[in-house]
């Protein structure tokens, strides 16, 4: 997995469950034999509210919708392809059609489990989930983001998806900076807008430095909430720069780039570039960084797209 040494959003997930679970007896956590070890603190502090359901993801998803129907606030967690791809109809019907609330927390999205191959990759999740009405899609790539977004959304009336990456972006935000549905302007600029989600904020900031050397002043926007998208922030920036590059660890089709295009429609003399996973399976093995290279998600690609 791509997890860098040091603090992980995944551990923050466990820490947040423990903290919120002790405050709120309605929180129930169900995992599919993933993160079982780090959830033991929650399990011990909140007896009867932690279940390792085994390896039956669609049933686990339906069960969590039932927990929501009983008045509880469920959190369902395992690896992204099994929770999103495999259990999509259960999310669609048992949660969304029923208008029930819940929290879907994954690890292993994109190709975080790089060497495990296509069966363990998941880079169409935004696109799939965006077909469901009223769902909230988040991609918290720092510890404070996960904690803040979860606390803001876990007990609202929607299904909220938290796509936990293996790597953090490295930018220190304050909890007060994080608002569900609101993007963050990380750096001002006037020549081009770089819009990044997830760990790729780091790539955008590296590209900004290189662009500065080339005499280009890049504005950097960070999007932790894919849906609802902060279209106002995006549009205001692109109205100024007329050039936008979107960087994301998702397939080009149905990713953040598509939503940005929709948000900026009608702006004249616009140039748009998408730095995303191509619409094909990534079948190479190697490290997470090597697969980013295979997908073409690099600082150089961003710089090239911005010039």
């Amino acid at each position: 997995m791509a997890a860098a040494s040091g603090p992980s959003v995944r551990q923050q997930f466990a820490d947040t469950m423990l903290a919120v679970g002790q405050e709120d007896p309605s929180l129930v956590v169900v995992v599919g034999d993933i993160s079982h070890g780090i959830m033991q603190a929650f399990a011990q502090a909140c007896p009867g509210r932690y279940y390792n359901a085994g390896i039956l993801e669609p049933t686990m998803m339906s069960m969590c919708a039932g927990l929501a129907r009983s008045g509880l606030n469920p959190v369902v967690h395992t690896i992204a392809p099994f929770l999103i791809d495999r259990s999509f109809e259960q999310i669609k019907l048992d949660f969304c059609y029923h208008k029930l609330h819940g929290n879907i927390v994954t690890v292993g999205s994109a190709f975080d489990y790089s060497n495990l191959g296509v069966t363990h990759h998941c880079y169409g999740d935004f696109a799939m989930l965006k077909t469901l009405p009223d769902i909230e899609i988040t991609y918290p790539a720092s510890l404070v983001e996960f904690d803040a977004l979860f606390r803001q959304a876990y007990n609202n009336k929607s299904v909220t998806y938290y796509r936990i990456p293996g790597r953090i972006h490295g930018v220190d935000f304050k909890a007060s900076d994080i608002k569900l549905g609101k993007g963050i302007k990380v750096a001002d600029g006037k020549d081009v807008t770089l819009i990044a989600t997830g760990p790729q904020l780091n790539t955008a900031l590296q590209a900004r430095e290189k662009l500065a050397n080339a005499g280009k002043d890049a504005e950097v926007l960070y999007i932790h909430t894919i849906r609802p998208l902060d279209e106002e922030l995006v549009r205001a920036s692109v109205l100024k720069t007329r050039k936008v590059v979107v960087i994301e660890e998702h397939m080009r089709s149905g990713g953040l780039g598509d939503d940005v295009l929709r948000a900026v429609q009608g702006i004249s003399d616009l140039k748009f570039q998408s730095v995303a996973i191509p619409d094909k399976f990534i079948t190479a093995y190697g490290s997470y960084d090597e697969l980013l290279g295979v997908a073409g998600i690099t600082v150089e690609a961003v710089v090239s797209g911005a010039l």
Partner: protein
Amino acid sequence: MNDMSVIQKPVLNKDLRRQIVDMVVAGKDGHIPSAFSILDIITHLYAKVLKFDAKKPLWDARDYFILSKGHGCLALYVNLHRHGFVTDHDVEMFCRFGGILGEHPDMTKVPGAEASTGSLGHGLPFAIGIALGHRIQGKDNRFFVVVGDGECHEGTIWESANLARNLELGNLCVAVDWNQSAMQLLPYDDMPAKWKAFGWNVIVIDGHDADELNKAFKSVTFAAKGIPTVVVAKTVKGKGVPLIEGHGKWHHRIPNTEEYAEIMGVL
């Protein structure tokens, strides 16, 4: 029990069977044989077993009934109508624009419908979550689910059987509508043995016999923590009307004038 004994017993709930046929003819849509197959089970539950308040469909202390095989919904609808959950007007509007009763139950529209089902294999795991959620909150509600034998082709049914047993959901009772639809496709179908293998309490009955229905559901203890029970109900698709009994063209057929007369003549 053998198949002949099933056929020779008096047909129950003829009035509700007639109502179902009228709804299908008026609405020009619906699955009559699937509804007739489970009608006696559902009617027994609503008349003799379930605790509910039609004026307060979301009453906290109610028993939950979930029809996982949603295409049998007419059997549910006529019982919801009989007990006052839905109105004459709702019934008249079955499968019509502006109505609340469609070919699968919709929890967001129909008072008394506890799940929106249709895609098979969803109602049972959903019920497991509701049952577990109530147990977590210290509540002693009871949970009843009807699944089809064809629905038991779905993997989530067996994931659920495994999970419910291991969660010790003694407050859960499943009835399998074992009308042998599934055996047309996959002939090896020892339904009781399958549930037994997952560790459930298994009761096999004639699903059209009032006494057997009564004894079976009375025997379930509904312990908050215990072994879940499955009532494997031998049923006949289209039960009560020889013209439509069985697995042929009547699965989703609307009776014409002559057929309607013949069906009503039997009922």
